């Protein structure tokens, strides 16, 4: 690892003052991804600003007046995993966090940092490969070993977003509060995690001089419930091959207000809108679930090594929906 200077920020404002807008200064929270990037020499910051002692940057889960949840950016995945409030009000998030990484990593990793982690694409993570996402000209994964890559590929990068919570948060219609020199802004998660562009080779719209402050999950109506499932190539401590989250409402025997999201399939968590459309207004029958699962991979364009993910999406969404409709109501 290269040398860098390390400083502690006592407040969000102090941290914002230290951050520049050229990437030479990086905020540090749990460090579970940042330190890996430093050790692999994929980032060469001059200075790290440790946010963990910033008094006004929250670590904790709060119920809002409206009944939703507000989760401070510094809240660890372990905090979320142990929160009865999360399991009750945002079941999918609680399940996603329990399936993420390992207990040791969950003790360190924060929710804010988890949303900002860089892709695990093995070409991106190889310091000798100058891929498009790192400023190069093309994507070696597109025609390479892309078994772990996108089936809804962006152009040109075919990496997938690694976060489990992000997939759950998309289904839960969450939003992210950011703060920068120009003040606060609140952004829906689907507008926060987006495909990189030629000019912005990053998977979020967060500017270099901004910080994530909190994540909000809105309150659900009566009969709302959610859940999260994940396929890995071993039983624990692996990024999702495919993950799926659903939030839906069942009232008077009919499904409404459905959001289904998929992880491990695109550079940002992906809405399975065709599957949502199948469910909307229907009774939660096996037949309806099977048809929705069958539509979950609609629009997918697999690469040469990842066609298996289509079947996996359909199989996993079937299990997801079966579990979601059977789960007890959560507000």
């Amino acid at each position, binding site marked *: 690892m290269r040398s860098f200077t390390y400083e502690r920020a006592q407040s969000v404002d102090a941290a914002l003052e230290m951050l520049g807008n050229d990437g030479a200064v990086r905020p540090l929270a749990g460090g579970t991804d940042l330190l890996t990037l430093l050790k692999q020499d994929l980032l060469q910051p001059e200075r790290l600003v440790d946010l963990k002692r910033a008094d006004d940057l929250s670590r904790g889960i709060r119920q809002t007046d409206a009944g939703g949840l507000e989760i401070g950016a510094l809240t660890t995945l372990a905090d979320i995993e142990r929160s009865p409030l999360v399991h009750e009000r945002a079941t999918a998030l609680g399940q996603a966090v329990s399936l993420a990484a*390992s207990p040791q990593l969950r003790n360190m990793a924060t929710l804010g940092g988890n949303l900002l982690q860089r892709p695990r694409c093995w070409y991106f993570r190889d310091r000798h490969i100058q891929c498009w996402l790192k400023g190069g000209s093309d994507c070696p994964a597109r025609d390479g070993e892309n078994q772990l890559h996108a089936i809804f590929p962006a152009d040109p990068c075919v990496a997938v977003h690694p976060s489990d919570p992000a997939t759950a948060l998309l289904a839960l219609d969450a939003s992210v509060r950011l703060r920068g020199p120009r003040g606060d802004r609140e952004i829906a998660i689907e507008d926060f995690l987006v495909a990189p562009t030629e000019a912005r080779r990053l998977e979020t719209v967060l500017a270099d001089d901004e910080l994530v402050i909190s994540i909000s999950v809105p309150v659900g109506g009566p009969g709302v419930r959610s859940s999260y499932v994940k396929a890995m190539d071993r039983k624990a401590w692996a990024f999702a*091959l495919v993950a799926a989250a659903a939030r839906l409402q069942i009232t008077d025997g009919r499904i409404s207000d459905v959001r289904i999201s998929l992880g491990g399939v695109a550079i940002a968590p992906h809405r399975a809108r065709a599957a949502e459309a199948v469910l909307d207004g229907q009774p939660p029958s096996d037949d309806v679930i099977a048809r929705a699962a069958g539509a979950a991979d609609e629009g997918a364009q697999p690469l040469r090594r990842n066609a298996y993910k289509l079947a996996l999406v359909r199989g996993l969404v079937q299990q997801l929906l079966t579990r979601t409709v059977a789960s007890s109501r959560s507000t």
Partner: protein
Amino acid sequence: MTSLQVEKNSQDGKVELKVHNSDQHLPVWTKDVDLHVVGRPAPRAEGRDKVTGRATYASDVRLPGLLYARVVRSPHPHARVVRVDTSRAESVPGVRAVITAANDLNPDWWKDGKLFDPVVRFIGDEVAAIAAESETAAEDALRLIDVEYEVLPFVTDLEAALEPDAPRVHAGGNLAEEPTIYTRGDVATGMREAEVVVERTYSTQTALHNSLEPHGSTASWQGEHLTLWDSTQSVFDVREQVAARLGLPQQQVRVIQHHMGGGFGAKQIAWKNTAIAALLSRRAGRPVQLMLKRDEENLASGNRNATQQRVRIGARRDGTLLAIDVQIDQQAGAYMVGGESADVPGMYQMLYRCPNVRTEQRVIYCNTGPAVAFRAPGYVEGAFALEQVMDELARELQMDPVELRRRNYTERDQPADKAYTSPAALREAYERVTSAFGWKDRELRRQHNGTRRRGYGFAAHCWIGGGGKPPGYSWVKLNGDGSADIVTGTQDIGTGTRTGLLQVAAEELGLPLDRVAVHLGDTSTGPYSPVSSGSATQATIGPAVRAAAADARRQLLDAAAALLEANAADLDVRDGRITVVATTRSIGVSDVMQQLSPHMILGEGQREENPPDKSIRTFGAQCVEVEVDTATGDVTVLRVAAAHDCGRIINPTLVESQVIGAVTQGLGFALTEERVVDHDLGLILNANLEEYKVPTVVDVPAIEHVPLDIPDIAANPTGAKGIGEPPLIPTAPAIANAIFDAIGVRICEAPISGQRLLEALQP
């Protein structure tokens, strides 16, 4: 007293040396012998040191002035090194030594190569090295070494390397050696007579050892004398290699390995890192530590060779095997590094009675890191294919797969044309493991739940190792207080060798365990012992320790006889007390030794010859229950039962540890572990622990060890054989057979990942 018999063959001039502990042929510990220490679950001698962090591994060595080293490695799969400019690196503050092919001794290494070869042949191949005051300074300097490469065409795929126009890894072509062909009987005739023939191609992946402790060494010079703390399975091989390459007499090189965090075969040879640490240390005039990083470990420090096996077997309708024919291609990587070779054909030649067998084995160079022995090398790969073909044959014949194996049982080592020393062991393994698992009643328990389907699988194995052989030496020192020091030059590679030898010594000496210490892992104090490989250490060194202890015991009883005014032949020693048999007269060992003090008793022992007319092998079998989710390709191994022959069990806890560890590695080999290569770029994509997936604790089911504990009395006087490697062999095919049993789909490619299952399950 030991005698040596040296014979010179008049034809080829080869010298054959035979060892006899002549005047005192050790009585064999048969099943009926009453043993008091051996056979019981003694705790590991070094367990307390390990769990409290006091045990010193190679990376724990701290010496005044210690420097830290890093290695410059090729980023290209194949290139000529045109120029290495170290000037910028040498100006980094804290850098104390830089070595390259040009500025220091550049000894020969591997076959046809140099320590820093002018041609690099895989990503990770060594180019230069640096020692600095800190790891950070060494890394900063590493980035400033400017290497100019002339990039050459490369090939990283096993089959592509055999194409006539493939880039050549070495000047002589990509066949690393002449194909090895074995035949017995006539396969063509056997196939003609067969009523059923099964033909199938299997492939196995490149697997990475991933020992928790990487390769590494700490080197320190005192004048012309070099001390090396090395993470190695063979302190004596490292000494011999380093001494030869650096031009030193062996007595000036001392190699120490007191504790090791796993080797699994990859540390059984002298790797470049040891010599690099020694050269940097000599140049800097300071001690140097070089521990490899995980990616270096996984790129450049050995792997299990990938294979492709084209198998044909023919049988009669009653299951009798008539012919086995296999063509094996296996990947050497960029160099032949020596050590135990991967004997993939071994299973085909030995496991079943079959009159007509032909095996052909080709070893192929590629521009990837060199392959090296990996826990039961060759047999793991061979079993994956053979034990699945046997399962397919059983289905074709509508016969129980265990019954098919019973019908092809052999009590003889067919390639060697000798009887086994333990001819009933494999049969016992079949019977006991199936009975413990409930194999017969499996259909009653089979349940399917939606897309989740249960399956049951069986696989057997033989293993060429476990028997041990000479040479191997030990000394026993009986001290003035009646305690004993056991000295041997072997090493404990984490398997519990120290404890196993301690039990053998305490048993023979009649001393309690806490009065005996075993000293090993140091070339300067212990007599020569071979590499710890082939599951041989207990079977090689155990009898040598027992012989040395018996030599000491004889002298002890002679002394006690004089003091007790009795006949030495009437004396027995147990738990530190010598008694005149059938009397109440006795004396403590400590009393005898105190009266002799300051004289001591020195016992000497050597490993005796193996029986010339018999073959010592080990065997085993496993049953597995799995659940496969056909919707997601998820495989859960629910249960493994394992029965393995290792002769007499010296310590049931240690044996069970080996079974659990090996089955766990077998599970990873079966389902998740695979080095992934981009063949267009020659790039290893998962030389890490993130995307190279070893099993986690959640992946591993209950593993039931069904101990056989059949003393192999014809093998050696302790009746014990090794267990380190073989329980890994049958796990993967047993899982594969269980997966087929669950879903009716056979995946011929290891690992059987969810991805491969889902692809195969699509209509």
